[in-house]
């Protein structure tokens, strides 16, 4: 029987594993990217390939060692490189003597047939269409549960009294959600998890800075690729809000109902009216929206040589000065070190804190 694997992005693997198993597949869970993953990926990828492509290359090679022979991944229609990843991965793996089966999901709106055919191939258990839909719905609910506890961890970490508490509790509650199977179980596990997180002893008086994180989706979602930037920031007393979650695709529509009355695209248009692939335009739009919501700063995460984020990075300094919000960019690759990143983050936090104190003081005096 074939063994299936897929790209790893943060904790989402728990959902994909469940879904693929429900459809009757044997799953190889992609391991968390490690030093070895990076080494493998770098060795077998083109030098200027983007960082996510390299990590995935390494991950696939590790999964092959673990017996995987089928890879499920996503395609895309450009204009960025991500849409061509699957093709290049397959070619390189073949060159190395691994004849992998690739199941590439293209955007269903452009390729409806491809979508149906892929689902059918993966449906080893020959479940009815209704069954598949209910499995997908349940998986989606689990993904939402994972996202909501992650979001809460960003709120509690900067306020926790005993350092390391949030991370410990977070690890524990993830397992609860992982074990939940039916929808009511998932809902119950989510509630218990959130409850547990809220009970972490916190200091409500502490001055917490709020920072938005924008950038390319893979490095935003996989902590191993961004050197756990959220945790580092949390420990520095910064609450982070990521602009992207796997379940957050629909958020662009709901934005209209917020006080900003503006979608991300609308916000970005004066600066970058063109879709430049990846999430370049979103990085600009989200920076503007976060500035309007009174955030203290923004961090842009971009893979080295990432085309859309380079375009965004070129324009962001102007946005930063127009909206008076500090922006810090990290171009990530296999050489980025955690120590260097921490130093830059500490300096950035200091800057934001001083700015905030100054603002508070002037507000007191004038108002």
């Amino acid at each position, binding site marked *: 029987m074939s063994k299936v694997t897929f790209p790893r992005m943060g904790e989402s693997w728990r959902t994909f594993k469940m879904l693929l198993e429900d459809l009757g597949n044997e799953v190889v869970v992609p391991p968390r990217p490690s030093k070895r993953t990076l080494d493998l990926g770098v060795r077998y990828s083109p030098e200027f390939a983007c960082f996510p492509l390299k990590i995935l290359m390494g991950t696939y090679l590790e999964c092959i060692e673990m017996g995987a022979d089928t890879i499920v991944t996503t395609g895309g229609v450009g204009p960025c490189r991500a849409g061509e990843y699957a*093709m290049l991965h397959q070619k390189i793996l073949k060159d190395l003597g691994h004849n992998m089966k690739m199941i590439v999901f293209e955007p269903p709106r452009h390729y409806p047939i491809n979508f149906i055919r892929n689902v059918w191939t993966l449906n080893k258990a020959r479940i009815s269409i209704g069954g598949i839909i209910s499995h997908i719905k349940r998986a989606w609910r689990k993904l939402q549960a994972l996202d909501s506890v992650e979001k809460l961890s960003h709120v509690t970490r900067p306020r926790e009294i005993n350092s390391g508490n949030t991370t410990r509790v977070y690890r524990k509650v993830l397992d609860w959600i992982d074990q939940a199977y039916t929808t009511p179980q998932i809902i119950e596990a989510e509630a218990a998890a959130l409850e547990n997180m809220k009970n972490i002893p916190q200091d409500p008086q502490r001055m917490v800075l709020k920072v938005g994180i924008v950038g390319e989706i893979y490095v935003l979602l996989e902590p191993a690729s961004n050197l756990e930037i959220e945790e580092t920031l949390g420990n520095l007393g910064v609450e982070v809000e990521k602009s992207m979650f796997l379940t957050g695709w629909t958020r662009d529509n709901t934005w209209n109902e917020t006080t900003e009355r503006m979608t991300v695209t609308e916000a970005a248009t004066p600066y970058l009216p063109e879709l430049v692939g990846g999430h370049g335009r979103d990085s600009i739009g989200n920076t503007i929206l976060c500035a309007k919501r009174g955030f203290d700063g923004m961090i842009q995460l971009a893979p080295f040589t990432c085309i859309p984020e380079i375009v965004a990075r070129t324009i962001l300094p102007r946005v930063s000065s127009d909206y008076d919000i500090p922006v810090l960019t990290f171009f990530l690759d296999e050489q980025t070190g955690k120590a260097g990143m921490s130093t830059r983050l500490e300096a950035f936090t200091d800057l934001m804190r001083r700015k905030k104190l100054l603002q508070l003081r002037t507000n007191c005096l004038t108002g």
Partner: protein
Amino acid sequence: MTIKVGIPGSLLYYLYYPMWRTFFNELGVQVVTSGKTTKNILDQGTREALADACVPIKLFYGHVMDIKEQVDYLYIPRVVCLNGKTVYCPKFLGLPDMIRYSIENVPPIIDVRMDTRQGRFALVKAYLAIGKILGAPKSLVLRAYVKAVGILYRYNRLLRKGWSPVAAMNFLDNQVGGTDFDGPLKPSLKFAVLGYPYAIYDSFISVNLIDKLMKYGVKVITAENIHPTLLALQKNCNLPKRLFWTLSDRALKAAHYLFNQNKIDGVLHLTAFGCGPDSLLNRLIEMEAKKHSNIPFMTLMIDEQTGDAGMTTRLEAFVDMVRRRKEVH
């Protein structure tokens, strides 16, 4: 006073300058271009542009810096898609915005969007929009457009005959001169030079690659010398998906065509440091080259620091190697 429009001498300059210049001149607008890349232009570009950008984008910044004080408008169209299928590199798509928001005191930018996927008349509409910005009457704009298209046709014909862009532009200007890539010596070898027009034809950043080869008695053929129909016949080059980007797609098709035709002695791929699409393109060409091991293949990477000496050594070694192989067989 006549309006002055600046056209930076990089990126699409090598493919469309004759057309654009004709168009503006017909409207009675003076065109200022930065022309050939110089050391100074490169240095300015490196200083102004983002350090993580690719070399061609840095060069473009340098060309903008060179002319921005002398013109009323900068012409940086947002070229998205010109063939109804493939798009340009995302950096082209955001180019006007990058320039506008990261260089101080830039004159107004004419950044009309060109995307032929939007319908048959998308290009005419784009040129009408340019005319409107410059305050030219519609009939004049249409006449200028027709004339510009005619020039582009003649320019492309010259390129296909094997001329270099510089020679072809010269010829269209003066109706004299011009040679193909044969060079003075009787060429004994024939090489394909693949890469983006703004890299291989820019004699400064490519460190005179084409001239050097000519001096060694090598005839050069580039993607622009091949008839588009022959390239189109390559379909997707046996890939499940074609490359998204026009110029990368063209280079890959040229590689596919030339390797399979088997009439060349060597293939060079000139790639730019920090180029995103090239990370894919280069690997795909390399894989194609592997299948044709009888045709030697070499990748040359250029960056801001590429020196004459290093390039010469590598080229000479490659040419020698190819020549020796040829004598043996």
